[in-house]
């Protein structure tokens, strides 16, 4: 497909997503709707009922979900979850999970903590091959399946799969200020699991999952910042003070110009990261870290400025700006702070 075809396809996807998300007044977009729209199955192979698309298309959906500040399980279940499933060796269970996720009858949560940039396996298998451990801050942890990266009996990294209603498995919701995201502490105590293996190098596989998480958050931050700039510019054009629209004051419009500049820079960094991950570029990790660091900070600044420029109205619950600002601050923290991602670049210079 040429770049142009891609861009047309993405515009269409974007329009459909914006339209669909615009109808969900309470920002709640459940798994059935995601599957019905074909979004959970975007990157799932056609043989399993998916669309056989790429991370480029997933990135479009992430951006639109950010724009709508939608409460969906997309980051944990699709960006991270399907990303991991696609890296595993074909097996009856893996294939079944892909098919069920595509149709919306199952959801998966990858048992990694979003507290840090690193996603080190935090689970253990005991002598009988049962899963033990507890991982906090699992994004969209309240899924029907847990996929736990764990060191296997032969020392290689594998993935332990178990339903979250199985004996020994608990999922405890962890409320956060941002009500549009769901985090959970997921624990296993001698849970009986099925082992899935990576198709390629497990270390590289886990790094890819991690980079996808960074990218998903960067896209989300970009989308929410775009929404905040749009809303702000539109409000400033109608709100009158001193007998003129407040958007005609330079102090106000210069702030909006700065928001657009920051968003333009972010678009470049996110675009580069999407391309690098889609192409399997060796520089994908760096590109994703750059996008995550910059987009995370940018969105907080843009949403914060949006609240300021909306004035008193912007500080009300009703206006909804708060939801974006809270989501932006959580996006910034999830899977590593901007400083943590910049540290990776610093280490590369050593």
């Amino acid at each position: 497909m040429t770049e142009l075809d891609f861009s047309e396809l993405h515009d269409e996807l974007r329009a459909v997503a914006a339209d669909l998300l615009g109808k969900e007044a309470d920002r709640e977009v459940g798994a059935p709707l995601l599957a019905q729209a074909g979004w959970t199955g975007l990157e799932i192979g056609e043989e399993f009922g998916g669309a056989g698309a790429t991370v480029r298309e997933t990135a479009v959906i992430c951006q639109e979900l950010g724009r709508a500040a939608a409460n969906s399980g997309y980051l944990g279940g699709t960006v991270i979850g399907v990303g991991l499933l696609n890296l595993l060796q074909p097996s009856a269970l893996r294939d079944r999970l892909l098919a069920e996720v595509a149709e919306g009858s199952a959801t998966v949560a990858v048992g990694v903590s979003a507290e840090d940039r690193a996603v080190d396996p935090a689970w253990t298998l005991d002598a009988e091959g049962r899963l033990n451990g507890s991982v906090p801050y699992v994004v969209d942890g309240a899924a029907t399946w847990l996929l736990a990266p764990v060191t296997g009996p032969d020392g290689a990294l594998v993935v332990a799969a178990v339903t979250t209603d199985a004996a020994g498995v608990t999922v405890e919701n962890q409320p956060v200020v941002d009500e549009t995201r769901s985090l959970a502490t997921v624990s296993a105590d001698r849970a009986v699991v099925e082992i899935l293996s990576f198709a390629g190098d497990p270390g590289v596989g886990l790094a890819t999952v991690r980079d996808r998480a960074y990218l998903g958050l960067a896209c989300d931050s970009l989308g929410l910042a775009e929404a905040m700039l749009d809303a702000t510019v539109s409000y400033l054009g109608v709100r009158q003070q001193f007998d003129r629209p407040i958007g005609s004051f330079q102090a106000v419009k210069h702030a909006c110009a700065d928001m657009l500049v920051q968003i333009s820079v972010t678009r470049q960094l996110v675009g580069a990261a999407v391309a690098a991950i889609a192409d399997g570029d060796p520089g994908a990790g760096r590109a994703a870290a750059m996008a995550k660091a910059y987009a995370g900070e940018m969105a907080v600044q843009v949403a914060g400025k949006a609240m300021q420029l909306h004035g008193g109205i912007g500080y009300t619950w009703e206006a909804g700006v708060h939801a974006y600002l809270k989501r932006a601050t959580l996006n910034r923290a999830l899977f590593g702070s901007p400083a943590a991602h910049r540290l990776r670049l610093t280490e590369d210079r050593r």
Partner: protein
Amino acid sequence: MSDLGEFRERVRDWCAANVPTDWRREQATVTESEFVAFQKVWFATLHQAGYAVPHWPAEWGGGMSVAEQVVLYQELAAHDAPRLVLAFVGIHHAASTLLVAGTEEQRQRHLPAILDGQIWVQGFSEPEAGSDLAALRTTARRAGENFVVNGQKVWASGGAHADWCLLLARTDPEAPKRKGISYFLMDMTSPGIEVRPIRNAIGESHFCEIFLNDVEIPAANLVGAENAGWQVAQATLGAERGMTMLELAERLGNAGFRWLVEACHDNPDSRVQDQVSAFEIEIAGLRGMCRELVERSEAGTAGAADASIVKLFYSELLQRMTDFGVQIGGVRAHTVLTKPTSSGWESGAWVLDFIGSWEWTIPGGASEIQRNIIAERGLGMPREPSVQ
């Protein structure tokens, strides 16, 4: 290997063989005439290779694809080639003006001459017409086959060495201010022209005042129609911004970032390293924006504020980076009293680079004007009501 890959190899080989080694050290202490000679030799060297005016149409000696131009400027920056300082206005602004709005005779007269080293200066700004350029007061009065020009221009970069000047002057004092301006090509050897260098904040004198006292310009040197000069200037001013910004961004990402990494290399403070990484990210974003601007300009899909976004971000990033270099360099950085001529805006002479960065945030549309443009043309925000 792709054609573009082969082209990159060719440019790399050429740079390895032709970029003068040690020019930074030598150019730190040269006289004005040695600087001019160095610039002319470097221009001729580039021209011989076909690298001086790659953006011109093939019939005039250019014809390089946009993708190849991007590669060329990336490699020139990566090999730390000297910048074309003196030829800049000629190969960019003068050429685009002639190609867009000039007559065939004017093109024949000047484009080959520019390739032979003719130097141009821009005579736009005036003491009373800075950000509000259309308020310019220099007059050009019709007298038979000539126009007679009187007035004063300022901030004419390279004016002391210029052979020709792109001049905006008022030909209809009664018309609304944007409708009474004409665009001229002025021979700098004409009687009645006096050029006085202005010493700038870092002690250099490339900016000049140009005093015009009954200077005669043949009517044949009018570009576009009489009183349509503002439109000509608008059509040609931004024409080259994409590629010239790309070159500057590549230089900031190569030599500029290298100086910063070197200066900070042994610094144990993690906040310092964090800031260097932050700059690395911003440079990556800037380079991406420049490539996109170039591609969209070529395709005719660039947004009305895209060039302003790039200019604003570049100039303020340059200022923040050089300020950071000054802080890292400590007192010792203040003992570097000269910077090499022919270098970019980041020479590693941190204090001079930092002070010199205002030459980016003020001219060519100050940052405040750029923000107005971005808000009004990029976001469609309401204009400020004009004072009655």
